[in-house]
């Protein structure tokens, strides 16, 4: 029996519970292979920006100190793109559960938390690409922000705050065992974006609606991302909105995730 004992002794567990650059690389390549993901997250925000922001009068109408309306729309579209990207990144778990892949992964040393970490990093990576594309498109069609610092701050906030939607995507991915979970989440995100003032400023929606809108998850992200440009609205309320929704979706994702990995 010495062979078995030797083999046992020589074996070890991977570091970081299996979270590795190699896995990220493979998963990233796979994600980009999904045409739906690419269109949703990279092409659509850019196209919407072209449609809504490429108006001649928007380029002359000032926003903040040295920005224009096209610039403001660009930031909103960057938020929208990041949101779609991170949600679909998180929602990948639903497809993987439906295919029995999650079960297969349980036959490897990959720890459940490392798996979640991989999904979050992936979601945030495509979120970043989406933000960069929106900003490049904006620059190409004449978006103006006061200076490069504001530009960087808006982009960074749009990206970082999209973490809310990575958590949202994960939560929904665990909640909805559907192969095409994004077909459900796409329209939901569109409605939330309207309610959160990404497409139309909430003030134009009437007083009651504007008040309600401030409690919806997209509002906080949009308001925060535009803050360096507009210096408008209540910064702390927006931050609180982002933090609370992240906590809520994160807790929801953890709850479903624990149920999913509980040994029955």
């Amino acid at each position, binding site marked *: 029996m010495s062979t078995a004992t030797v083999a046992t002794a020589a074996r*070890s567990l*991977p570091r970081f519970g299996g979270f590795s650059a*190699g896995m990220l690389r493979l998963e990233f390549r*796979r994600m980009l292979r*999904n045409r739906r993901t690419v269109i949703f997250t990279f092409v659509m925000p850019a196209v919407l920006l072209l449609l809504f922001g490429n108006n001649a009068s928007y380029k002359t109408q000032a926003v903040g100190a040295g920005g224009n309306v096209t610039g403001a729309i660009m930031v909103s579209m960057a938020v929208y793109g990041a949101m779609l990207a991170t949600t679909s990144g998180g929602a990948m778990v639903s497809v993987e559960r439906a295919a029995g892949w999650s079960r297969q992964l349980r*036959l490897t*040393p*990959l720890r459940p938390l490392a798996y979640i970490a991989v999904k979050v990093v992936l979601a945030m990576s495509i979120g970043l690409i989406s933000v960069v594309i929106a900003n490049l498109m904006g620059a190409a069609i004449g978006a103006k922000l006061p200076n490069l610092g504001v530009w960087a701050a808006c982009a960074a906030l749009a990206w970082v705050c999209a973490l809310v939607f990575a958590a949202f995507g994960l939560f929904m991915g665990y909640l909805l065992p559907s192969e095409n979970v994004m077909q459900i989440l796409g329209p939901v995100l569109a409605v939330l974006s309207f309610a959160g003032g990404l497409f139309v400023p909430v003030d134009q929606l009437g007083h009651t609606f504007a008040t309600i809108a401030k409690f919806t998850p997209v509002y906080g992200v949009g308001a925060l991302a535009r803050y360096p440009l507009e210096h408008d609205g209540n910064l702390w309320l927006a931050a609180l909105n982002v933090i609370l929704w992240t906590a809520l979706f994160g807790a929801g994702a953890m709850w479903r995730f624990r149920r999913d990995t509980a040994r029955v």
Partner: protein
Amino acid sequence: MTLIAPSISTARGSGELAVDLDSVVKRFGSVTAVDGISLQIRPGEVVALLGPNGAGKTTTVDMLLGLSAPTAGHVSVYGRAPHDAVALGLVSAVMQTGGLLKDYTVEETVRLTAVLFGRPTSEIQPALRRAGIADIGNRLVGKCSGGQQQRLRFAMALLPDPELLILDEPTTGMDVAGRHDFWTAIRQDARAGRTVIFATHYLEEADAYADRVVFVRRGQVVADGTAAEVKAMASGRTIRATMDDPNEAALAAIRGVESVEVRGDTVYLHARDTDPIARHLLNNTDARDVEITSRNLEQAFLALTADDSGSER
């Protein structure tokens, strides 16, 4: 009808056991899927787990892999909790369905497995070759046939170089050639001393590839023996005949008859040498429609795994 092999294959050996199931029970609500299975498997054994659907084979496999925990009893694999053994790569499995992502290529799927187990990437190609899919490495998994996907699962299972390989109905849905290729690969692999447990409903597979056969029915082990012992059990022939008002005691008294079964006016006589019995029946009784068949592993299997409501008792 229960056959338990002599101590050779079931005794606790001096060394470490590959698998040790001790009075394992698994209940799902009011349903008892596994009802007190005790099974010891030593390193190097190739064991077939046979049984009808719902017998508890897959539930047992799930517990061996740490995918589910027993309601009662104890499971250990190479002296460890199943989940730890899996994480260390001591055990790996080829599952029946699922567990693959359509938008990975064959090579990427195996590469990911290598990454997860921390194995060098130089082991990817050999695993693909051993599973016989080196030529389709760039194909998307979604475009692979069922047999190719199964061989991909096999390649993934080989990567951690496991001590114990578990196969759950591994050739379901494969054609004859695919099954042959698959088993050739497994057999070559087992020659190196790997322990293999496979659940199957193809009796010829159990016969051809296992050196120990464990019959499971209703969550219990009803027979456990070497393939040779199972063959011995399945030896002999069965005479089927039609008789008016058959007398079971009189039939059992015929010289050479080992067992009698009466179902209405049909009788089944089992014996090692059936010719004299057939002659006796035709000459001395009203038996007609006489039919002699050799009792194969399939019948042994059916007898062992049949429902209690059957006429076997």
